[in-house]
């Protein structure tokens, strides 16, 4: 546990010292939410879109920040130094998770309060349950970022994975358009994408008055994705395999 907290602590200090990135993590979601808030013609559309935005942004930022942070670890040689030290791969992955999840939670809370109290999105749920569900999406996103960073040689290549892995999910998983109205093959595809379950789950928690116990399927699928990606992230950090 000590090593996990040491790595989490370092990740937090590192991000906190990068003031510009920190400001962007907080300001960008608010700008996007404001644009959505003023551009949508009806309250009903706002109610549908903003909870989905909450889930999408945590996936997006979790993936991007952890992916680039890991890439930098590799490029500046600190990954090599860590892998030559007594820390285990699990320490590294979980340490990163804890560090990034703190920022993901701050982002979620700011966006949540902005959506509910400023943009007046309907809220019919329990805040702590939303935080728990968002944490699950955050774990998935950070592990996805760590795993995918193994396939990128630089930041430019890492960013190219966003249109490949994140943007299609925004269109296919019901963030903007309802999955039911899509062609059959896209509906079939949506069943395999984690954002579908993230969006369904967060809407159920925020709008439909449902609790975590009522969205067992969504939690189960996201947890399976998170565990699978955590294992893949661990494999990508294998000692004796440093390049």
């Amino acid at each position, binding site marked *: 546990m*000590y*090593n996990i907290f*040491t*790595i989490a602590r*370092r990740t937090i*200090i*590192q991000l906190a*010292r*990068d003031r510009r990135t920190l400001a962007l993590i907080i300001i960008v979601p608010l700008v996007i939410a404001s644009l959505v808030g003023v551009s949508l013609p009806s309250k009903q559309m706002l109610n549908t879109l903003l909870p989905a935005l909450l889930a999408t942004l945590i996936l997006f930022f979790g993936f991007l920040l952890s992916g680039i942070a890991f890439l930098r670890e590799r490029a*500046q*040689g*600190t990954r*090599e*130094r*860590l*892998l*030559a*030290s*007594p*820390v*285990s791969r699990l320490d590294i992955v979980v340490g990163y998770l804890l560090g990034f999840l703190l920022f993901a939670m701050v982002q979620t809370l700011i966006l949540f309060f902005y959506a509910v109290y400023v943009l007046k999105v309907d809220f019919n749920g329990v805040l702590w349950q939303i935080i728990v569900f968002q944490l699950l999406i955050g774990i998935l996103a950070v592990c996805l970022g760590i795993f995918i960073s193994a396939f990128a040689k630089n930041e430019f290549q890492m960013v190219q994975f966003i249109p490949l892995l994140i943007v299609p999910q925004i269109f296919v998983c019901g963030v903007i358009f309802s999955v039911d109205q899509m062609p059959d093959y896209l509906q079939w595809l949506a069943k395999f994408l984690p954002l579908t379950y993230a969006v369904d789950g967060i809407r159920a928690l925020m709008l439909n008055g449902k609790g975590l116990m009522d969205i067992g399927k969504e939690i189960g699928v996201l947890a399976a994705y998170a565990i699978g990606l955590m294992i893949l992230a661990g494999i990508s950090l294998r*000692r*004796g*395999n*440093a390049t």
Partner: protein
Amino acid sequence: MSDAAIIVNNLTFNYGYLKVIDDISLETPRGISFGLLGSNGAGKTTLIRLMVGLLKPAGGSILCLGKPPSPANARNIGYMPQLPSLYTELTVEQNIDFFARIYGLRDRQARSARVNDVIKLIDLVPKRKTQVIKLSGGMKQRVSLGCAIVHQPPLLFLDEPTVGLDPELRVRFWEHFESLTRAGNTLVISSHTMDDAAHCQQLAFMREGKIIALGSPAELRAATGKPDASLEDAFLYFIRRGEVQANV
């Protein structure tokens, strides 16, 4: 426990079809500075990365302080990679403190005292609160050395530690390396400069993934048969001898 700090037997490693380490065997006594000398691409860095466990050998075996490379044995080993390999957003103190923590210095007071000692040793007291990104190349090298020695490992791997250092700093680094070996620690240092080689107690000349000569600087110079031969002469002598043998 064996007296050898490192025992390497018939070690091989390939990058694809390219043989980077070609059947290397060596044994290093404890408490000495052991130099790996060779030109760029000779396999020095790959050999060090194999010995610290970052790469898996294609064949052969490695024992560091009697054990194969593993995270469990890593606490006894210090590693300074070729690149400074530091968290550039963090300060000098935060970098050294981080590596002190992950190498097991858990007691806050003892860790703080050790971090202070290391910062004094690398002569960066005025810069302790400065972010690494704002430091010069030589200062980053010093912080990197600090991170590698903070847990006082009995076996230390230093991959080209003096590259980019000014002559004054190079002398100071070597003074410190010599104080570490006097205290019984073993140092493995890779370099391509004869100046570094002259400081080592034992040397391995490397070329194309092989060790072409092994011995003390005096023994290697004497092997040339010329009384005034320099280490550079000795290095060239072994390269030419290898070429002649290959052509026979």
